[in-house]
């Protein structure tokens, strides 16, 4: 049991977990329906990761304890696991990894500062880049990496594109995620401030 946590802290962990869970269950499902499966990683995953970071990092301003973001992630994962449409292993792993990385970011720098929030967002949303590779590796085994490497090599030879181009493209995709994550972290901090001004009693 976590010592020093009041009933208010647990209620707020539950609330922010529910907010993230509701976003995953409603907006996440709609986006997965609208966009084709192959766009999942590049668009839907990025949008959902940013929304998740925004909510969880806002929550950190109201539950000022280490581990609160991770617990918000745990609650969200459980809600997602029991949501309609069966078990979705990918989003559950994604939510847990993102909350863990946000917690790490908040651990490395003073936790209520803008740079800490930016770092937490950057780390968490960057996960989205590695998520599909790791998930495919987990599900399909080592054969996935073998096939992916072979296709990239054959493709570059077929279209006359240097292999370096693929690395550049991957680097660009990672950079977009890092920038979006850092921006999300900063926005979360500023929105959290705005909400705290609205709710003087909720101020911890």
């Amino acid at each position: 049991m976590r010592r020093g946590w009041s009933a208010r802290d647990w209620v707020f962990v539950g609330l922010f977990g529910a907010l993230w869970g509701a976003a995953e269950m409603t907006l996440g499902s709609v986006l997965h329906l609208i966009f084709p499966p192959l766009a999942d990683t590049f668009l839907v995953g990025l949008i959902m990761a940013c929304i998740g970071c925004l909510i969880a990092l806002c929550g950190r301003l109201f539950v000022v304890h280490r581990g609160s973001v991770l617990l918000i992630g745990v609650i969200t994962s459980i809600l997602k696991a029991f949501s309609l449409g069966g078990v979705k292993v990918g989003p559950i792993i994604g939510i847990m990894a993102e909350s863990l990385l946000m917690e790490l970011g908040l651990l490395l720098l003073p936790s209520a500062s803008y740079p800490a929030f930016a770092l937490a967002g950057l780390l968490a949303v960057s996960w989205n880049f590695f998520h599909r590779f790791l998930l495919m590796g987990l599900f399909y085994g080592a054969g996935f990496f073998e096939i992916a490497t072979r296709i990239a090599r054959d493709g570059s030879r077929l279209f006359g594109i240097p292999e370096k181009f693929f690395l550049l493209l991957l680097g660009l995709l990672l950079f977009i995620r890092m920038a979006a994550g850092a921006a999300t972290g900063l926005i979360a901090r500023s929105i959290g401030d705005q909400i705290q001004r609205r709710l003087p009693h909720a101020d911890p």
Partner: protein
Amino acid sequence: MQTRNKPGWVRLLLTVASLAGLAVCRGPALLGLLAALIVLNLLLQPAALRLFARLHFWLFALAPLLIGAALFGPRDLSLGFLNISRQGLTTGWSMSVRAVCLLLIVQIALSGLSVARLIGLFHSRGLRGLGFALGVAYNMLSTLSETSRIVLSTLRLRGAIRRHPLLALRLFVVAVVSAALRHGEDIVHAATARGFDAE
């Protein structure tokens, strides 16, 4: 969802055994494991097999088979007008079976569990706070959906979404979170009045 009630340790044992089987099995043995997992899912939670009725599932399961056969290795097998790779077909097939097995193992691990049972489990393991938070989250879902709907309608009726989409998005988040926190304060008061102690 209809679920056969098996003790938690049976599910845990089955999950661990299935994962071990997945790590060990190669080639045709994988097909045997897949058949065993389908039977287990049928016995534990027949509704879990609705998974097979989804298009998304088939896309996920057949993608490595098709990509492997079309793009991996020399095209040495002729199927009518299609030339495919025998090596790619074998690799893709084992990847597909492995992925489906893993999905079925996750279904077994979670079969018979519910949010209420999980909350009870947290309480019995001394994680009362986490169980309480999960209960709050689960019961707040419908309230939050309703709040979001009302805030969105208000912003739309005032024309904010059309004129200032980004500002409207920010206002949406601020309004929904503020409303949720106000509701949370009521829950805190109610819990405190009933002598709730998370420790």
